[in-house]
Each structure stands twice: as C-alpha cells, then as structure tokens.
C-alpha cells in the first residue's frame, strides 16, 4: 500500500490566527451591509 503519510511529523507546524485578526473579522462582519438595488449589490461598511 502506498505510503501517503509523512514521517516528518515534527515539520508539520500547527498555527492559529491571532485573536486580533479574528476580532477584526467579526467587527468587519458586523459593519458590513449589503444593499441590493435593481439586481445590483452594493457593499457598505457602517460605523
């Protein structure tokens, strides 16, 4: 059976996005407003 798993497990680094990045994404999502007019969508960011 073909070996498909790497033996270099130590090279596989697990990282996570920083809390600040996630906070930014959540704030961006809260501020994003999509308006649809005559089939056209407009994005705006509300304060």
């Amino acid at each position, binding site marked *: 059976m073909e070996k498909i798993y790497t033996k270099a497990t130590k090279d*596989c*680094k*697990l*990282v*996570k*996005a*920083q809390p600040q*990045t*996630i906070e*930014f*994404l*959540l704030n*961006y*999502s*809260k501020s*994003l407003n*999509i308006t649809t007019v005559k089939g056209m*969508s407009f*994005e705006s960011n509300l304060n």
Partner: protein
Amino acid sequence: MEVQIQDSVLIKSYIQGDERALETLINRHNQRISSFIYSKVNDRGITEDIFQDTFIKVIRTLKRGTYSEEGKFLPWVMRIAHNLIIDYFRKSSRMPMYDGSASFNVFSVMGDDKLNAESQLIKNQIDSDLTVLIEKLPEDQKEVLMMRIYKDMSFKEISENTGVSINTALGRMRYALINLRKIINENDIVLTY
C-alpha cells in the same frame, strides 16, 4: 457530552443575522486553515494576512447570499485560501522581496542618491568656498574654468567664444586647476565631505 452544531446550521444562523455563529465557525476551523496557509507560505505575518483575506471573502459571499450549501464549507474556505496563496506567490515573483540577513543587506549595494541634510549643508559650504577661490584666479583662467565647469562648454566652444585656439584654452584650464590646488594647499582648505 457536547453536541457540535454542524457548519451548515451555523451558516444558516449567520446568514439570518447571528454574528456569534460566524465566531464559532472561525474558531472551529482556525487552526486547520491557518496551518494549511502557513505550510505553504512559511511566514506568520503573511499567514495572518491570507487568513484574514480568506474570511473577508467568506463573509462577503455569505452576506450577499450567493453561497450554496452543499455540506462542504471547509473545502470551500480552503479553496479560497489556496487561491489567495497562489495570488500571493504570483505577486511576489513579479516583485521580488529581499530580506536582509546577518551576512548581507541589500542596502549595502543600493542606496538613495540624494544627500542627507548634513551632507547637503557641507556641499553648499564647499560650493560657496570654491566660488571665492575661483575669484582669486587670473581673469583668463577664471573665464575658461567657469565656461568649462559651470556652463558645461566644450573646449571648441570656449575657444570660439574667447577668440583663442583650443590649445590655449586647454592650457588656461590646466593652469587654472594648478593654481586652485596651490591656493587650497597654501591656505589648508579642506574641500571634501
């Protein structure tokens, strides 16, 4: 035992306005997606940027209502991240980025041609001193030197202008420089920076 809410349910909640659903989704897949990006770009800062850009696209698509739920949320997000990674490599190959290392810094071979403020002040002083020194030269030598250095005239043009032969113009220039050096040395003047 905690029952994990399926991605499809969270997406539906998010589209309906529940922002906490998005937070759950992001946290759930954070490590998987970040690790995938990092394995390709090998830079934490760039990983953060691409992760952010990925989810901005996800958020925009979900809010526009153009996402079709097929039970494949994570593969979809990974595909977006993958495409952004490709974009990143394409952009960086067009604009190579150099990082300085301990042994070599690119700024040692390339620099700004402009003088800094201190050097400019010194240069201005030297130019001013030189003008004073040139005034001390004999009139014919001063004339040739001014035409050559300040007006960038050829010796042919100088000879035509002054009514002397080219050889005479050349001679006057030579003596002008010799005399300038004499004046500089006699007065211990420093004209370098």
